[in-house]
């Protein structure tokens, strides 16, 4: 071993990148920087899965215990609103993917168009969600703040085939609605964060960013947006569909 203490890298391949404004000083190459960012994003999404995982576990346990209450609770979901929201989110995922594609192909106008569409669809989703929450407030289905078991101990005129719940089981619908508000609330919070970042992205894209070949940020945001979409794809059947009219 006749090597030096720390042999140094040959100088080539180093100097030309020094000028790139997007390469942070501690990365050797842009590839390394992009890979690191993507990898970091995936790890972050992994923590997000664990974050939702705790709530999904609670959902599974209580659904197993209080099955009739969960059935009754999900009958009060507006299925048209859920379906519409699912469609809106899937469309927004498509427009987000197109935005990433436009950034890749360096088309600024298309990028702006698709980002704005995604933003619009995000607002539509939040609007519909807010409408649903408002309805649940009106119907006294908000545990802790405004809850009454009245709807569950009597036959709902819209679903005359359903049997009313016994009062003790009707109390357990609070478990369903607690988890409903928790899951949709945390999801909506993620949507809000997403929408805020979208505004920032649109502003930057309008100034000409992301279409010069440096699109790590928009790629990672795309991952985040798709992740939030996927969470909803799980929430929709679990909260709206799975127990409906067995």
């Amino acid at each position: 071993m006749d090597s030096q203490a720390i042999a140094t890298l040959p100088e080539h391949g180093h100097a030309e990148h020094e000028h790139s404004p997007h390469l942070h000083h501690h990365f050797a190459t842009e590839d390394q920087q992009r890979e690191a960012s993507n990898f970091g994003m995936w790890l972050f999404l992994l923590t997000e899965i664990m974050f939702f995982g705790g709530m999904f576990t609670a959902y599974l346990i209580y659904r197993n215990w209080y099955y009739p209450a969960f059935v009754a609770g999900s009958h009060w979901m507006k299925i048209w609103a859920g379906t519409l929201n699912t469609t809106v989110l899937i469309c927004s995922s498509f427009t987000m993917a197109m935005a990433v594609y436009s950034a890749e192909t360096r088309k600024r106008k298309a990028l702006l168009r698709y980002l704005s569409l995604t933003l619009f669809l995000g607002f539509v989703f939040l609007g519909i969600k807010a409408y649903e929450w408002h309805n649940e407030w009106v119907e006294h289905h908000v545990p802790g703040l405004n809850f009454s078991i009245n709807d569950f101990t009597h036959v709902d005129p819209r679903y005359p085939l359903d049997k009313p719940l016994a009062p003790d089981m009707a109390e357990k619908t609070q478990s369903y609605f607690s988890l409903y508000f928790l899951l949709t609330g945390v999801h909506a919070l993620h949507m809000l964060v997403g929408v805020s970042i979208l505004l920032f992205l649109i502003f930057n894209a309008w100034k000409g960013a992301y279409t010069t070949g440096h699109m790590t940020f928009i790629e990672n945001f795309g991952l985040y947006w798709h992740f939030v979409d996927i969470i909803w794809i799980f929430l929709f059947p679990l909260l709206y569909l799975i127990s409906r009219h067995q």
Partner: protein
Amino acid sequence: MHYFISPVLWQFLVKWLAHFPLFPPEASSVAPYADALFFFLLFISALGSGIVILMVVSFSVLYHKERNPEATQIEGSTLLEATWTIIPLALFMIVFVWGALLYFRIYNPPTNAMNIYVVGKQWMWKAEHPGGQHEIDALHVPVGRPVRLTMISQDVFHSFSIPAFRVKREVIPGRYTTVWFTATKPGTYHLFCTQYCGTLHSQMIGWVYAMKPEDYQAWLAGSTSGSSLAQNGERLFASLGCNACHSGNPSSRGPNLAEAYGAKVQLANGSYTVVDDAFLRDSILNPSSHVTAGYAPIMPTYQGQVSEEGLIDLVEYIKTLHSNDRVQQTLNTSLVQNSGSTTGTGASAQGQAAAETPRMVNK
């Protein structure tokens, strides 16, 4: 020596050091088993730590820089590493099996155990003997007889611990937990709440009095409150109107409760379950999840209407219910009596207990 310090302090020190136990008394049938495992664990801990200390000290001496200025580079040794993987693993497996056996011994009560109910609340222990004897922060038990504690908390988590018996169990709101022991030595032992339960957690302590069987009988006779738990339960059963449906008539709306305890019943969802204390308690509070097959789910919930003590009375009553004669008799009379009477809590039912003559003795 004691001239150098204040004689008062000296006396204090002597007295102090003389009363300072290093090992808890062994006063139950499981205590020797627990201690045997403990000494085995101490032995392997001492062995393990001894080997590590021996290695560190001897290498420090043998290979100190002054004695051994040149280090010899060694990569490792698969054989040695396998040794100190497998031997600890084997020891830990012995500990695991031994510990598991002890655990099953402590948490599976024998069938002939006598039952005492314990209710934990901030910040006291309330023990209820089937004969109706109540005690606060104290527990009287006979020596030589297995005792099973059925415990529940009225508020937060507590934990019922008798160090001299080497037993402990969490006392949880909303569900019964059990623990059992056979006291072996008469004496007075500490009773602790070991789960942090709020401001006066450290005051939630008491004494366990292990007594010779004859002393215990004398204590039972001297501390009776007038009516047994089952009698209180019977009164509560009538005042809540349970007998209206659970009358034992073939046409009644609720299942027959005579001889129900310990039986295997089929539920409305098709599954089978054994009727035990927990099942009875849950059926009163959450009837719709415990509907017996063939009956309509019409029973209302008694959540919030019966205290934990009242529930214990009801459970104890149903346990001792062997025929429906008295249920039907009460039903007929209570229709007249009941019109404007009770509030239906266990406490008030107990309050009325003194007024009525106990007719069924349950000891």
